[in-house]
C-alpha cells in the first residue's frame, strides 16, 4: 500500500498535474473569496435596509428579512441546481463557474447579512438614540457610529463563514465545476491512487484555509480596540 503510493509520487507530482491542481485550488479559492466578498457587500446592504425605520420602506425590510431567513435554510446543493436550471433561461451560455459563483453569492449574502445585523445590534441602542435626536440620518448613524463599533463583532464570524465555505464549494463539483474536489475525482479516474490524490486535495484545502484563518485572527486582534 505505502509502497505503491510512494512509487506513484514522481508520476503524480508532474508539472501538468501541479498546474491542474493549482488552477483547481484557484477556482475553489475564487468561488469562496469572491462569492463571500460580493455576498458581504450585498449582505451589508440588506442589513442596512433592516436598520431603516421609514414606514414606506417596510416592504423592503420584509423582503430583506425574508431573503435572509429563506436562503439560510436551503442546502447549498439545492441552490446550485436551482441556479443551474434558472440561469439557462436568462443566460444559456453562462459558464459552470459563473453558476457556482452566483450560488455561493446567494447563500453567503443571506448568512453574512445576518452576521452584519448581529454586529449592528451589538452596538448599544442608546448611542443610536442620541444620534437620532441630533438629526443624524440613518446612513450617517450606520457609517459614523454603528459600523465602526460593529466591525469587531462582524469580522470573526464573517471570516469563519468564508473559511468554512471553502469546504462547501466542493459541492460545486456536483454540477461539474473543475474545483479541487472535482480535480481529485479526475485524477483518481486517471488511475492515481485515491489515497494519494485525496490526501493531496485535503492538504490543498488546508493550505487554502489556514492562512485565511490566521488573517481573520489578526484582524480580530487589530480591531479589538475600537479606535484604530
Amino acid at each position, binding site marked *: 500500500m505505502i509502497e505503491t503510493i510512494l512509487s506513484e509520487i514522481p508520476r503524480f507530482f508532474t508539472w501538468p498535474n501541479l498546474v491542474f491542481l493549482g488552477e483547481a485550488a484557484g477556482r475553489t479559492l475564487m468561488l469562496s473569496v469572491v462569492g463571500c466578498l460580493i455576498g458581504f457587500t450585498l449582505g451589508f446592504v440588506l442589513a442596512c435596509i433592516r436598520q431603516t425605520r421609514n414606514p414606506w420602506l417596510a416592504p423592503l425590510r420584509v423582503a430583506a428579512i425574508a431573503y435572509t431567513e429563506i436562503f439560510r435554510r436551503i442546502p447549498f446543493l439545492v441552490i446550485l441546481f436551482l441556479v443551474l436550471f434558472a440561469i439557462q433561461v436568462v443566460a444559456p451560455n453562462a459558464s459552470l463557474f459563473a453558476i457556482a459563483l452566483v450560488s455561493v453569492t446567494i447563500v453567503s449574502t443571506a448568512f453574512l447579512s445576518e452576521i452584519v445585523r448581529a454586529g449592528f445590534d451589538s452596538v448599544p441602542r442608546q448611542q443610536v*438614540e442620541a444620534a437620532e435626536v441630533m438629526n443624524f440620518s440613518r446612513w450617517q448613524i450606520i457609517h459614523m457610529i454603528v459600523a465602526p463599533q460593529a466591525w469587531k463583532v462582524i469580522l470573526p464570524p464573517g471570516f469563519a463563514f468564508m473559511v468554512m465555505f471553502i469546504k462547501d464549494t466542493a459541492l460545486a463539483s456536483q454540477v461539474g465545476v473543475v474545483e479541487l474536489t472535482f480535480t481529485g475525482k479526475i485524477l483518481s479516474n486517471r488511475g492515481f491512487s485515491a489515497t494519494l490524490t485525496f490526501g493531496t486535495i485535503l492538504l490543498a484545502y488546508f493550505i487554502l484555509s489556514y492562512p485565511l484563518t490566521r488573517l481573520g485572527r489578526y484582524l480580530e486582534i487589530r480591531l479589538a480596540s475600537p479606535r484604530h
Partner: protein
Amino acid sequence: MPHLAIDGLNASYKNLKVLHDICLDVERSEVVSLIGPSGSGKSTLLRTLVGVNKPTSGKVTLAQRTLDYSSASSLKQARDSMAIVFQQYNLFQNMTVIGNVTIAPLKIKKWQRAEVEEHAHSLLQKVGLGHKLKAYPDELSGGQQQRVAIARALALKPQLLLLDEITSALDPELVGEVLDIIRGLARDGMTMLIVSHEMGFVREVSSRVVMMDQGRIVEIGTPQQIFDAPKETRTRDFTARVLSH
C-alpha cells in the same frame, strides 16, 4: 405663547401606559424641574418630547410650531432646536471626547470647523475636561462622561435643553461644579426642562417645579409652593422623604 407647550400627552411602552395626559407649558428662558419618585415617568416624558419614544396621543408645540412625531421633517425641525442629556449619557464609544462634542455641529449642522472647535474647547474647559480632549469614553469615569454629554448638548446651541438626572453619576465634589454650569445657563436665559434629585438645586434654579407620580402630573408650582406649602399629600410625602436625606 410658551416656548414649549405640552397638551394631553400620552405615551406607553408596548402595553404599559407610562404617561397619562401630561399638560405643561414652559416659557422662554424658564427653568422647569421635574421631580417625583423613581419610575414616575420623568425620563419617559423627556424621551417622548425628543421623539425617541413616540407619543400615543397629545399635542406638543415648540416655538409656535405643532410637532408631528410621525413626520420625519417635522421631527427634524424640532430636533434642530433642542438637545437632551440622557440619564445614561449615551456617548459615541468610537469617538474621542472632542469627536463626540464636535461631530454633530460639523457633520449635521455643517458649521465652520474653526468656530466649532473653539466652542467645543471652551465648553469642555468649562466642564473641567479640557485635558481629556483625546480620551475615549471608556477611559472616563461616569461623571466625566456625563460632563462630556453636557458639553455635547451645549455645542448644538439649543433653544431648549432637556437634562435627565445629570448629577446622579457624579462624585459629590463634582456635583457643585456641574450645577454651577447649569446655573450659568439659567442666568444666560437658556430654556430648560430638568429632571433632578438635587432638591436644594431644584429649589434655587427653577422658576417652576413639576411633581410627577405614576405617569401623571400631581402638582405644579413655584419652588416655594412645592417645597414649603404643597397642596397634595403625595408631594408632601415625596419632598419630605427626599429632603430628609
